[in-house]
């Protein structure tokens, strides 16, 4: 309660003033406060327009700080008040959903690859800006174009791809005279069996199939590696139809790494996205799939395993080596009253000098989405970047070999493929039965999303 109002209330209690007088004075105080706040608001407006910007907080803290500083520098230069907010892995979608449904999304947001597909109804067409930026940088890489260009319009300005890689313990491979694996079966299996030592809690492979981004990415890739997939080239469900045979082989192999070959640690089916990072850094894994953030963590912390680790291109299967590469991008919302300022800020942070500063601090995490950025000498500055870059350049998208669709994105978001693997490992289903069960769920999603 306001100090003055409380004092008046005490006077009423003590019968020093009448209730009528109390009401009159309280009204005067309230009115005065309202006028004061209004004046303060006008003064704030005079300091420049106010913008809301959402950035994504990754595990690579150095580059997060650089991006924040760049945005602050822009705000100072343009005399704009920027209200910066961070979203991260656990709260990103909730924040977007809540803000869009409440009708108050930010002016500008750094979105992940699924952002344009998921939030298209709330996003502004930024084709002119996106084409300008892309043309000056040699054009978009194919996977990035798939994410941000929907029905010929750009709903995001591409920024970066987080490369993934296959992390192997070079020292352990060298000690046994084993070459880095090129395919999962038999290379990874043999490497793992020869090097692992369960009695010392050292395991050949750390790859969860549980509900997580790591599990999702792996399951999607392994189906492609065996010539299968979730969708056919027309964007129709193909899990237990067109590609049934190939998908059974891929799923069976994945389950075998746990149950038959026993090259994965106990509890791997309960892992989240951080478990394999921790296990690898604790020296308990010979190999694991992960994003570049693991390499950043080891290098930045001067971890003793950093020098003993090699990052290579993700192994493949009988049909080749495929993997989905993402594309972080800038989205400007329709509800924004500061479209021009938002576009200006995107141009500012995507300026090549500023992006290079950001990229170098990321230690491999800020992968290219534009052709010229892929040619930057930085990618030859560390042998471990080679595998990461290769992964980006051959990257595909959810829905491959068909188009990226809302249904394909939802299958990922609902962890359908992880559940499918879990039904075999933990539910005791056969690979075929699990595929058929998952196919039904995919068909249902396709039906619902097609209607929308």
């Amino acid at each position: 309660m306001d100090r003055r109002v409380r004092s008046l209330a005490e006077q009423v209690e003590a019968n020093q003033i009448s209730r009528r007088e109390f009401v009159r004075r309280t009204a005067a105080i309230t009115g005065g406060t309202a006028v004061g706040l209004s004046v303060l608001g006008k003064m704030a407006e005079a300091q420049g327009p106010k913008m809301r910007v959402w950035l994504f907080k990754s595990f690579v803290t150095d580059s997060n700080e650089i991006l924040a500083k760049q945005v602050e520098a822009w705000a100072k230069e343009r005399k704009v008040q920027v209200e910066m907010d961070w979203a991260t892995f656990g709260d990103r979608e909730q924040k977007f959903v809540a803000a869009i449904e409440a009708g108050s999304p930010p002016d500008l947001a750094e979105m992940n690859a699924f952002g344009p597909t998921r939030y298209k109804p709330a996003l502004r067409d930024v084709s002119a800006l996106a084409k300008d930026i892309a043309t000056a940088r040699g054009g978009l890489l194919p996977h990035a174009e798939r994410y941000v260009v929907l029905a010929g319009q750009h709903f995001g300005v591409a920024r970066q791809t987080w490369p993934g890689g296959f992390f192997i313990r070079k020292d352990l491979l060298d000690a046994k005279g084993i070459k880095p694996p090129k395919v999962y079966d038999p290379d990874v299996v043999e490497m793992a069996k020869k090097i692992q030592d369960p009695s010392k809690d050292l395991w050949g492979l750390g790859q969860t199939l549980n509900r997580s981004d790591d599990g999702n990415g792996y399951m999607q890739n392994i189906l492609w590696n065996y010539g299968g997939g979730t969708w056919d080239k027309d964007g129709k469900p193909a899990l237990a139809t067109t590609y049934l045979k190939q998908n059974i082989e891929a799923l069976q192999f994945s389950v075998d790494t746990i149950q038959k070959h026993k090259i994965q640690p106990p509890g791997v089916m309960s892992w989240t996205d951080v478990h394999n990072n921790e296990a690898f850094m604790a020296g308990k894994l010979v190999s694991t799939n992960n994003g570049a953030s693991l390499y950043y963590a080891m290098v930045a912390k001067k971890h003793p395993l950093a020098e003993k680790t090699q990052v290579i291109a993700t192994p493949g299967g009988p049909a080749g080596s495929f993997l989905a590469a993402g594309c972080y991008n800038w989205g400007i919302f329709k509800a924004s009253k500061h479209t021009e300022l938002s576009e200006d800020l995107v141009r500012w942070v995507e300026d090549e000098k500023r992006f290079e500063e950001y990229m170098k601090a990321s230690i491999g995490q800020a992968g290219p989405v534009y052709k010229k950025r892929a040619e930057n000498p930085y990618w030859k500055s560390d042998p471990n970047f080679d595998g990461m870059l290769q992964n980006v350049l051959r990257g595909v998208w959810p829905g491959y070999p068909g188009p990226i669709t809302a249904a394909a994105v939802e299958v990922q978001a609902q962890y359908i493929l992880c559940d499918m693997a879990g039904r075999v490992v933990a539910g005791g289903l056969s690979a075929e039965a699990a595929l058929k069960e998952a196919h039904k769920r995919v068909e249902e999603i396709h039906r619902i999303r097609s209607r929308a």
Partner: protein
Amino acid sequence: MAVPAAELRSKAVARSGGAVGLRRVLGPDHRMGYLFVAPIAICVLSLVAYPFCYAIYLSMTHKLVGMPPIFVGFENYIRLTWDGFFQRAVVNSFVFTFGSVALKLVFGVVMALVLTSNIRWRSFWTGVLLVPWVAPTVVSALNFLWMFDGSLGVLNYLLVRVFRILPQGVGWLSEPGTAMASVIAVNVWRGFPFFGISFLAGMKAIPAELYEAAAVDGANVVQRFRHVTLPGIKNILIIVVLLSTIWTFNDFQIIYILTKGGPGGTTMVMPVFTYETAFGAQRLGEAIAVALYLLPVLAVTIMVLARYMRKGRRR
């Protein structure tokens, strides 16, 4: 034309008859009463009734993020009924809830009995046993996530390396046989102090004379517990079980942090399923249908228990 005075009087009485009747029923200040009740009525209607009715409406729509809802009637409910993954979530919810509540009940009674006995440092032990209840759920769940970890967790370390009970670590949260048991164990660890402290309050209110009389009549410890303690805490027991059933059924944090409903849906429960449908699938209408699906069952359970409690009090 002149109207007789008696006729005018009778018309006036007829006009005001309704108001007089209402005043007689509600009292002379009933208009003022409405005025006083209005703020809270408006609050309840706008903060409870409106969102609830709107949620029911949305559950009957096809509502995607950023797009207007399309009315589909009971389609979401019908589809969910035949969805195998949802069916498993319903079964898991009941297993998780009743398994947890039953164990919390047992441990809670034991805790209360121990704390009513003549142990040393009773206040200290009461404080210690309340720690799980006081600690934030997220912190507890994250600690258990680490403890259950197959490679780096302390549980496997103790069982395999220190006590050498097991030859190899167990995937506590990844094996079908242990995943549900593990999440129930965490819920029990967190929830039993509430049972214990509530029962403790109830037991302290039982007059000592009743125990003395029972002892004089030759009742042993078990009989005293059965015929004196249990009837004495019956009402508290029902309230605690009722509240805990509701809380456990709606518990989201423990399972989401420990397993996210995995592996393969083994620990998927309704709140996590709702969350996944809302923010993963971003189908808001269907997510609300999931949340509301078992509301009638829970409401009936609560009503039956509440009626039972009232009966007990009347006796």
